């Protein structure tokens, strides 16, 4: 089903034969990956399988030793995560990379704050605009956070995750990458993150999610890519495999 739907549409991201070595260790070995619009792809694999390293090549942290990356058909090379972001590849790190002392609106705009002239004298940060725009993007994602002017520190884990996702979406992410987004969350908050991923999907933004949590994976993924010792060993529609199949692929007994 999925495959058929994909033929004809261009992938948002194509990673072709990516390889990354650390000294003698081949952390990612000749891995290719296509991501289609509105698709949620889970990256599964045991510890040290190479998931994070693969993601880091796509988000501009590492430069691949071999291989190519295409974004909407055009080859891209990224010297830094910042460059990846400016291309529309937003990564939400496990530690979220938020400033806990600042409020949600500032965090959404951090590094790209809008300004307006005050009395024609100096440029001041336009907090009202930030608040209005933050409300818009949170509405769009169906996120309700009371009092956006509170510092992030006073928010729950799920709300923080939501702010991080809202930030990615506001800046018109063409691809959102999440590394272990639910690792530190309680069950209700995990649900909330799943809902957010579904919302992103509805808006046609593709998501790559790394998770060790099989429940996570089956709750959100359309497709599951399994890695083992740097190789891609599986690429299957989520509906066609069971937990046991996945574990077997991950440990290599299939």
């Amino acid at each position: 089903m999925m495959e058929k739907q994909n033929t004809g549409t261009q992938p948002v991201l194509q990673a072709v034969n990516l390889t990354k070595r650390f000294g003698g260790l081949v952390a990612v070995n000749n891995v290719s990956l296509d991501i289609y619009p509105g698709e949620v792809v889970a990256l599964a694999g045991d510890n040290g399988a190479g998931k994070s390293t693969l993601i880091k090549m796509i988000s501009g942290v590492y430069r691949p030793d071999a291989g190519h990356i295409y974004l909407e058909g055009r080859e891209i090379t990224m010297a830094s995560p910042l460059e990846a972001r400016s291309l529309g590849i937003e990564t939400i790190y496990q530690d979220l990379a938020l400033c806990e002392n600042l409020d949600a609106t500032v965090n959404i705009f951090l590094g790209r704050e809008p300004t307006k002239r005050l009395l024609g004298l100096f440029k001041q940060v336009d907090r009202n605009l930030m608040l209005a725009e933050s409300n818009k993007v949170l509405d769009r994602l169906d996120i309700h956070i009371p009092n956006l002017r509170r510092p992030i520190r006073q928010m729950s884990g799920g709300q923080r995750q939501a702010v991080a996702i809202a930030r990615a979406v506001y800046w018109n992410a063409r691809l959102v990458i999440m590394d272990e987004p639910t690792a530190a969350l309680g069950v209700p908050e995990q649900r909330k993150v799943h809902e957010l991923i579904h919302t992103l999907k509805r808006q046609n933004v593709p998501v790559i999610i790394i998770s060790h949590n099989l429940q996570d994976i089956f709750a959100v993924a359309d497709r599951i890519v399994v890695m083992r010792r740097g190789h891609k060993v599986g690429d299957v529609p989520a509906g066609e495999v069971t937990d046991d199949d996945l574990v077997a692929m991950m440990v290599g007994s299939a």
Partner: protein
Amino acid sequence: MRLQTGEIRSSRFWLDTLSKIWAWLFLLGMVAFFSVAGDGFLTPFNIQAILANMAILMIIAIGQTYVIISGGIDLSVGWVMGMAAVISATVMNRLPESSPLWLVVLSGLFAGLLAAWIAGLVNGILIARLNVPPFIATLGMFGIARGIGFLLSGGMPVPIYVRGLGFLGNGFLLYHHPTAGWSFLSPPPGLAQAELRNLTGYFPFVVIVMLVLLVIAHITLSRTKFGLHTYAIGGNKEAAMRAGIPVERRLVAIYLLSATFAAIAGIVYNVRFTNGAANAGEAMLLDTVAAVVIGGASLFGGAGTVIGTLIGALIISVLANGLVILRVNPFWQFIAVGIVIIIAVLIDQAREKFAQE
């Protein structure tokens, strides 16, 4: 269960509120106490004296506020101030006697600033580029600036022989004399030497300088990108970097700013006391950090305001003044400030601990 979280919430709320307003209450309490207990405390004359005496402290504390919000500390401020004061005094003395006063002051200011900028730049580069902990980098600069100040001055204060300098440093915007009336910028002309005693001044120049710097620094910190980035860097440097904030450049600018305010304070010292001394700012490290921390800044970085620091500086200055008025040995001031700074840090830590739960 529910009750418990409710309890934690409300005690956190109280702690948060307390940590925000205790300094105001403390200041009010002190003012009330000294007004009742001390003769001549609550007079316009004495209040102006308190403000004028805190100008140097407040000016340096502005820079320290930025530094501490960014998650650092500048231990070198006092000795950078002294070095700038010595250099500026030396330059003022070298100028021809016929030079106009404004030229003398500006030349001194510029020379002092130049020296301080080198110190600030070195601090900034060490901290931002080479990842030296701020405590160590500025401790090194503490020693260097101290040595340079003493070497250049031969260990003695440098008297400044410039006519009218002291008048500028201790001057007022407005003067009033019971018989000669009001005058602007200088005392009414034609007053006999003995009559000068009955003159009252309003709005000391140094207080005006302090207020202008304070307002500019407050607006910059609370409204501009630079200010916001200062908070972001102090809150989570890694996140600030990933968000694309030019963290290195901002940090260098912050330490340059701190050195700039130290140099300005050095020149204020020059004109107020008509000399430049290498150890002019010896007490400034304790006093500025105390003012900033009392004012609600966190030594963990990410929190603080210029207005808070103003309250902190007021507390220190009122304390010093009040003790003198009560004829208490002024050395008690150091002990009192030491105790207040420790209390402030304890409150900050309690708040931090609660926030993490």
